[in-house]
Structures are given as structure tokens and as C-alpha cells.
């Protein structure tokens, strides 16, 4: 059959129930243990990767599952971060934090709604959607640099009120420092992952996969694919904005968060980790993040070159990414172990 009918990168591999449970317990144990065993610097670094993983997860939903290529997905992350930070500059305490969170999630969502309405409903091809997101990312990054009074320009935004959550009068938790942001990140990632799983396992998830495969066929069946894509865009951009809001507790809010290079990095994380797998992009983010931390000291100047080359090579020669490869190896190992026990 022609290449169109068989997206060769898609590998359907399943872990059994028991190994999945085991993996989950191991992860939870590691997650709980990290703050006690690692240095504050390492914990902050890990928190940053966890927040980036949420962004990667949202990109996987949009691109890996929905087939929508966006070259500016990070701008929703950046918008969330800026919305959160700017609101906290003018409003403090628990109320201020909830307002900031609402805007951090809401502003990207509204932009996504507008984009979807104008682009998906005019039946513009996927390429143009990519171009428009590219143009917007460039524009937003430039706007953030230029409008210093509002955004702090290249110096970034800092000195805003500490995000505080809880119930007024009863309990109050400052999401700042080393440990609290870490746990906030872990909980945020867990919630977003569960949300993503729910979406992908529902009929809505089936529909977005169908759109990725053959959108015209789904439309001919009677589905309003523009609506489905728009809703997907809103959900994933809101998730990206949520990640951006979390980021303000561990990172530096600067114009790069909105820009095109950061968006490209997200594509690389998802591409390397394994698109359309949910867990893969999380893996890819952490892996590439660690690689970058180790290598960037010596290779800071040519790191973007590596990113570009990686990306090119992955798209050309290894579209399925890391995660399916790991799954297959695990399955093969289990089968060999199983047959060894039976004595075959």
C-alpha cells in the first residue's frame, strides 16, 4: 500500500497490567524520595523538567494524537507564565494566586479558541496553521522584549508576590523554594497525565486520532472536525498555560519562553520521546533536558545546532521515537523470561 495508508511510525505495543502497576509504584516511590536525597539544585532542576513535561504532554495530545503541527506551542506556556507573574505583581496572597492561575490557564485558552475559530473553520491546510503559529510566536517574543514596562523586557519578570494556595483562614501553602514547587509539579503532572489519558481513551480521543489519519474521511462520516480540533487546541493550550503558571515558581520568566526556539525544543522532546504515546514525551523531556544540562556547559554555542540535527534525523529516520522501542524491548524481555520459566 502507499505510504499514506500506513503511518509507519505508529507501533502499538502494550505493557501488561502487572508490569504497569509495578512501574507506577516505582515511579511514585522515586518521586517521593527525591527531595530527601538530592541537593536543592537537583530538585529545582527536576521540578523544571517536570513542568516542561506537562508542556510536552500537551504537545503530544495536539500533535501526536491530533496531528496538528504548531511551531509556536511554547507561546501558550509563555503566555501562562507571564499572565501568572504579571497578575501576582498586582495581586498577592491566596486570592491573587487563584486569580493568577485562572488567567494563566484562561489567557492561552482564549487565544487558542480564536486561532481555532479562524484557522480550522476556514479549512486552511495544516501547513498554514504551522506558519501562523510560527508568526505569532515570533511576534509575541518580540512584543515581550520591546514592551519593557509591562513585561520587564529581556531582563524578565521578577519580584512578584509569592504564589500561595490553600483555603483562606484555614491553611496556607507557599509554593516557593525547593520542596513545595517540586510537589506542586509532581501533582500537576499526575493530574494532567490522568486528564490526557481520559481524553485519549474516550471517543473524543478516537475522533482526534481519526482526524490525524484521514480528516476528510471523518468529515464525510458527518463529524464537525473543525470543532473537534478547536476544542483539542483549547484544552492543550490551557494545559500548556497551566505548565507556564507552575514554571513561575521555579524559573525565570523571560521572552524566550514565548519564542520559536523553545517551541522547537518541545517538538524535539516529543519527537525523541515518542509521539502519540503520552509517556514517551515525558521521558523525552527529561532525557533531553539532562543531556542539555550536561552538555550545555561546554557546547552552549552549538547546542541549537545539535537540536536542529537531532530533530531532522528523528523525523527522517526514527519517527516513532524512544518509547515504543523501550516498550518492545520490555515485552521481548518478559517473553524470554516467561519461556525460561516454563522451561521451553
Amino acid at each position: 500500500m502507499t505510504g499514506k495508508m500506513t503511518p509507519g511510525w505508529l507501533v502499538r505495543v502494550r505493557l501488561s497490567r502487572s508490569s504497569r502497576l509495578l512501574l507506577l509504584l516505582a515511579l511514585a516511590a522515586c518521586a517521593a524520595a527525591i527531595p530527601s536525597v538530592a541537593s536543592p539544585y537537583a530538585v529545582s532542576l527536576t521540578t523544571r523538567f517536570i513542568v516542561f513535561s506537562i508542556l510536552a504532554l500537551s504537545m503530544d495530545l495536539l500533535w501526536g494524537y491530533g496531528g496538528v503541527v504548531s511551531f509556536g506551542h511554547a507561546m501558550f506556556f509563555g503566555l501562562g507564565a507571564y499572565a501568572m507573574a504579571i497578575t501576582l505583581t498586582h495581586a498577592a496572597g491566596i486570592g491573587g494566586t487563584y486569580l493568577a492561575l485562572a488567567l494563566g490557564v484562561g489567557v492561552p485558552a482564549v487565544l487558542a479558541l480564536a486561532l481555532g475559530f479562524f484557522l480550522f473553520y476556514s479549512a486552511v491546510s495544516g501547513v498554514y496553521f504551522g506558519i501562523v503559529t510560527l508568526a505569532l510566536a515570533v511576534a509575541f517574543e518580540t512584543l515581550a522584549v520591546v514592551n519593557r514596562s509591562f513585561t520587564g523586557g529581556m531582563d524578565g519578570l521578577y519580584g512578584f508576590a509569592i504564589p500561595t494556595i490553600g483555603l483562606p483562614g484555614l491553611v496556607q501553602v507557599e509554593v516557593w523554594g525547593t520542596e513545595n514547587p517540586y510537589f506542586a509539579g509532581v501533582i500537576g503532572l499526575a493530574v494532567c497525565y490522568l486528564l490526557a489519558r481520559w481524553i485519549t481513551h474516550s471517543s473524543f480521543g478516537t475522533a482526534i486520532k481519526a482526524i490525524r489519519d484521514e480528516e476528510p474521511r471523518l468529515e464525510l462520516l458527518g463529524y464537525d472536525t473543525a470543532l473537534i480540533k478547536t476544542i483539542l487546541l483549547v484544552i492543550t493550550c490551557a494545559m500548556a498555560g497551566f505548565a507556564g503558571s507552575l514554571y513561575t515558581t521555579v524559573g525565570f520568566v523571560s521572552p524566550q519562553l514565548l519564542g520559536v526556539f523553545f517551541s522547537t525544543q518541545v517538538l524535539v522532546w516529543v519527537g525523541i520521546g515518542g509521539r502519540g504515546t503520552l509517556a514517551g514525551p515525558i521521558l523525552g523531556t527529561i532525557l533531553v533536558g539532562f543531556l542539555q544540562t550536561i552538555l550545555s556547559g561546554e557546547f552552549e554555542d552549538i547546542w541549537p545546532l545539535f537540536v536542529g540535527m537531532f530533530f531532522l534525523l528523528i523525523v527522517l529516520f526514527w519517527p516513532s521515537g524512544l518509547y515504543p522501542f523501550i516498550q518492545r524491548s520490555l515485552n521481548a524481555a518478559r517473553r524470554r523470561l516467561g519461556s525460561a520459566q516454563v522451561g521451553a
Partner: protein
Amino acid sequence: MDTAIFQILNSLTLISILLLVSIGLTITFGLLGIINLAHGEFFMLGAYTVVIGGEIGLPIFVTLIATPFVVGAFGALVEQTIIKRLYTRPLDTLLATWGLSLVVRQVVLIVFGARQRGSDALFSGTVPILGVDYPAYRLFIMAMAVAVATAFFVWVYRSDFGVKLRAVIFNRDMARAIGVNTRRVDRTTFAVGAAIAGLAGAVIAPLGTINPNMGLSWLIDSFLVVIVGGQAASGAVFGAAFIGGSESTLAFSMQPVVASVLVLVFAIVALRLRPQGLAGTGSRS
């Protein structure tokens, strides 16, 4: 009154450059459906070819003539190594050429540094036109754009190759069935589009600063030209007029980046109102 004429002439200059940058893309992407996000890099490489030419002491007009060949050859190489592999995966072509664009930009950055470069113009001085003294070089750019566009259209509509090209555009399978070498058509058209974009870069080099990232905004603009212009060979002219015209008019009275965003908004709205583009016919398939 003088300022207005100056503005109009500046608009025409911008439209001319946009036309040169986008004309190849109109055919390769607008009509043949070949996706290439590294198109802006052809433009950028054209400018840097002039820089190299200056550094090795070549006369400028020699460099100007050589640039399309150099960049065109690079374009053919790109088509042969990367794009050809991904014809069945259009969205992956989008990603792969984006990766390529990043690689090319970084290589240029490493080789030439981030420092802004400049170059000398082919000639200087002003010419009195419509009552103002306007830089002769910019008039040269406009003339060149008209000349190249005309030559291009003659090539597409009058040459033997043009017949094959139009056959492939109309129905690729049928063209292949009657013996057209579609691979060669794709590669040649792609290389010519790259060459013209490279020429645009070389021609604009004296006008402003040259840096590795200069291709990005032209990439965006040329895609907007193609989509607003519509799926016809003449789409480049309409699109360049629309995008170039609005951009230069707006940039006169506001921050350049705000002007860019507004142009983007105009393009999106125009597309919603007329999905087939300004020059397009029928409904967008």
C-alpha cells in the same frame, strides 16, 4: 505630498522584494504542494553569498550573477536529500524542513558569527522620479523584480519545461503516465524557486543588515503571500501586493512588530472571507 510619494515608492520596493522571495514558493508550494520551511534560508544564503563575494574581492555584479546558481544548487541538494524522502508524509516534511532551517541558521551563525554584516550596493545615487529624489538602487530592485517575474512566467507558460510543469500541476499521475519525469520537474522547479529567493537576498543585501536569522520573517511573509495570493501562478503578484502593501503602510505609523501582527490578522481574515485566495478560482480543495 513628497512623503506620500516616498512611502509609495518604498512600498513598491518592499512588494518587489516580496515578489522575488515568494515567486518560487508560489509554484513549489502553492501549486506543486512541496513544503519547505527552509525557504527563508535560501534568501539568507543569497545575502551571505554577497558577503563572501565581498570578502574574496569579487566585483559585486559578478556575485549577483553567481548567487542564483549557488543557492539554486543548494536547493537542488535539499530537494534530493531531504524533501524527496518525505513526499508521502507532508506534515513530517514541515517538521524536517524546519529542522533543516534551524541547522542552516546555526551553521551560518557559527561560521560567520552573530555580528551584523553589510555590503556595498551595485551603484548608489538618486534619481528624480515623480518629483522626488529616490535611491536608484531601489528602482533597480523594482525593475529586477519585474524582469525576473516576467522571465519566470514566460518559462512557465511558454517553454517546453513549462508544459511539463503545468501537466504535473494539473494531474501528477496522468503526467507520469504520459512520460513526464515528475522527479526532475519537482527538483528543477524547487531549485529555480530557491535560486530566485537567493537572488532576492543578494539584491537586498546592501539595504539593511545581514544576520543569520534574517530569513525567518521573510519565510513567514512569503507563505502569507502564497496563501493570500491563491493557487495560481499570478497569485504571487496579488499576494505580494497585499502583504507588502499593508506591511509598509502600517509600519509607517506603528511599531514594526505590531504592524507584522496586524498584517497576519489581515491575512487570516482575508482567508476566512475568501478561502481560495485573491487570484484563486473555485473552491479550495
